[in-house]
């Protein structure tokens, strides 16, 4: 038997060895071709099955009106599986070199951000943005770790819904869309930093929605700044009045709530025209609250900030203009207590800019976009009247020209260069002509 087995194995081998080589190759080739065709057919079949699973095989049309048949055919589920949690992020690295004081040149990893979006169900999600500023945050370092947004969103209908949590205030062009690929120049513009304190967020409940005609609206009831935190000895209030007293939902004093409303119309492709108002009392019951200042004279102080903007993107051109103005009431008695200090509370502050950008060169995914921006802003345009000889004169209005270019390696990675020309220098506020370089990305 063993010999028979051996013969059975050896015989075909011997036969195969005796066949001419070219016949062997031809057979093999034919078999490979057959397998290849079979594989292609299987692949197409799998693709077809995958598509079939996600949509009805055919949608039978009837004469019935479209709207009345919306529930007749089950809607296909997405053709690709969607994870419940997705991550996104952006980052920004800057280099600033003052032209008159090169010794003050500075490089900074100004922002590293991780965002997340978790979907609980079709209508409900939580959306968050976590940020590290200036690379290192510890008791000995100057960096910060911040929660920039954290809210639960519940859509009541596809067109409108509610958000609750830490939300960005929808004023201006930058506050909600502040990724470095979204703006021109290495640094965010001054108006939307000094007057609208990007990234400005408050805790509260907001409603949002949009219409088919292109009108987008936002309404909200939120926490507000705390005037009790004003430091008349610091330059922070001169740099940004609201930036110096915002609370960012960090154990925020919340006796007084604020309200806001914002509208944007985008009914013509490329055009965005909008504006909004934020207002509320900002005394936060400082006089009455435990541990507060019993002599605080500005519990009734009210902040009102209004803003209007327009942006027109057409072909290779991108034009934008924005104006914002704010006021704080009931500061006369408060400022009397600050006499002799460098930074009283302003009564009014304002800013505006116009900007033009041109997508001059474009190849594959890359683009070179030079731009020019002119800004005017004043963080203390007026103060409440004081007795003659005791008041603080209003600040001069700062004017800044910025010329530069964004080079987009691809739409999500940008290299930037610009030159900024200031009307007047102010070392404490980092105002002075300078050259800036930057890198930004988002994903």
């Amino acid at each position, binding site marked *: 038997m063993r010999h028979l087995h051996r013969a059975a194995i050896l015989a075909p081998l011997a036969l195969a060895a005796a066949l001419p080589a070219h016949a062997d190759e031809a057979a093999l080739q034919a078999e490979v071709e057959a397998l290849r065709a079979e594989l*292609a057919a299987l*692949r*197409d079949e799998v*693709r*077809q099955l*995958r*598509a*079939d699973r*996600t*949509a009805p095989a*055919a*949608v039978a*049309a009837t004469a019935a009106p*479209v709207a009345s*048949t919306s529930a*007749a*055919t089950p*809607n*296909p589920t*997405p*053709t*690709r599986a*969607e994870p419940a949690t*997705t*991550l*996104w992020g952006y980052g920004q690295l800057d280099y600033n070199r003052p032209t008159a004081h090169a010794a003050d040149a500075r490089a900074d990893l100004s922002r590293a951000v991780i965002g997340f*979006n978790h*979907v609980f169900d*079709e*209508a409900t*999600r939580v*959306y968050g943005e976590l940020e590290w500023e200036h690379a290192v945050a510890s008791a000995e370092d100057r960096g910060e770790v911040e929660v920039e947004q954290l809210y639960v*969103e519940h*859509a*009541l209908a*596809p067109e409108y819904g509610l958000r609750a949590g830490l939300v960005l205030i929808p004023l201006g062009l930058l506050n*909600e*869309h502040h990724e470095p690929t*979204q703006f021109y120049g290495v640094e965010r513009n001054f108006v939307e930093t000094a007057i609208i304190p990007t990234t400005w967020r408050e805790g509260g409940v907001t*409603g949002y929605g*949009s219409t*088919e*005609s*292109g009108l*987008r609206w936002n309404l909200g009831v939120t926490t507000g700044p705390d005037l009790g935190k004003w430091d008349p000895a610091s330059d922070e209030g001169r740099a940004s009045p609201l930036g110096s007293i915002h609370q960012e939902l960090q154990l925020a004093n919340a006796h007084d*709530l*604020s*309200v806001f409303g914002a509208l944007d119309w*985008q*009914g*013509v*492709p*490329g055009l*965005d025209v909008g504006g909004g108002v934020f207002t*509320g*009392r900002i005394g936060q019951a400082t006089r009455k609250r435990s541990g507060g200042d019993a002599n605080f004279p500005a519990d009734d102080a009210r902040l009102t900030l209004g803003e209007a903007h327009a*942006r027109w*993107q057409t*072909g*290779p051109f991108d034009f934008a203009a924005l104006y914002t103005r704010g006021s704080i009431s009931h500061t006369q008695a408060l400022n009397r207590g600050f006499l002799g200090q460098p930074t009283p509370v302003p009564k009014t502050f304002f800013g505006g800019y116009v900007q033009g950008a041109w997508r001059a060169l474009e190849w594959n995914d890359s683009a070179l976009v030079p731009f020019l921006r002119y800004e005017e802003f004043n963080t203390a345009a007026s103060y409440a009247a004081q007795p003659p000889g005791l008041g603080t004169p209003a600040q001069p209005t700062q004017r800044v020209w910025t010329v530069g270019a964004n080079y987009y390696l691809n739409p999500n990675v940008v290299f930037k260069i610009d030159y900024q020309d200031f009307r007047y220098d102010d070392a404490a506020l980092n105002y002075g002509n300078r050259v800036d370089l930057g890198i930004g990305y988002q994903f």
Partner: protein
Amino acid sequence: MHVRWLIPAGAGLAALAPAAYATQYLSVEQAGRAAFPQATEFRAHAAPDAATAARLGAPPDWAPRVLEARGAGGRLGWLIVDQVLGKSELIRYALALDAAGAVRSLEVLDYRESHGGEVRLAPWRAQFVGKTARDPVVLNQDIRNISGATLSCRHLTDGVRRLLQLYNATLREAPEAP
């Protein structure tokens, strides 16, 4: 503003909430009937094969659903359902092409993200009507952007361009279904 005012405000908002909810703006069926009111049938057509997908630079799991719109006189055009990434979630949309491959309509079927939903605005979508594979269909060239929704605009524009190229590569020569 006092907190006590929030109670009636909250009650008012709660009254607005519908009992049922769907993120879907439009079904495939609705999109098909809106684009081809005279259609008597939407017949499934083979999905693009892997070689075509690779040639068009499509993502690996690209699987658009292709339907042939048919009327009494034969082929009316095509309805293609596809999806692209917005910022971090998928946008599902239906592109209707006439028999010559020109865009009849673009409908956003589902949009889930927290920001960027403006791509569903009719005036923005209307920019695509009449486009063919011979047009650039590139954001900031022949398609204008929406401020604040750049990623969604870019990805949806890229998706439409790919479907126009799909028409050019395969559907244009496809024999009519019997």
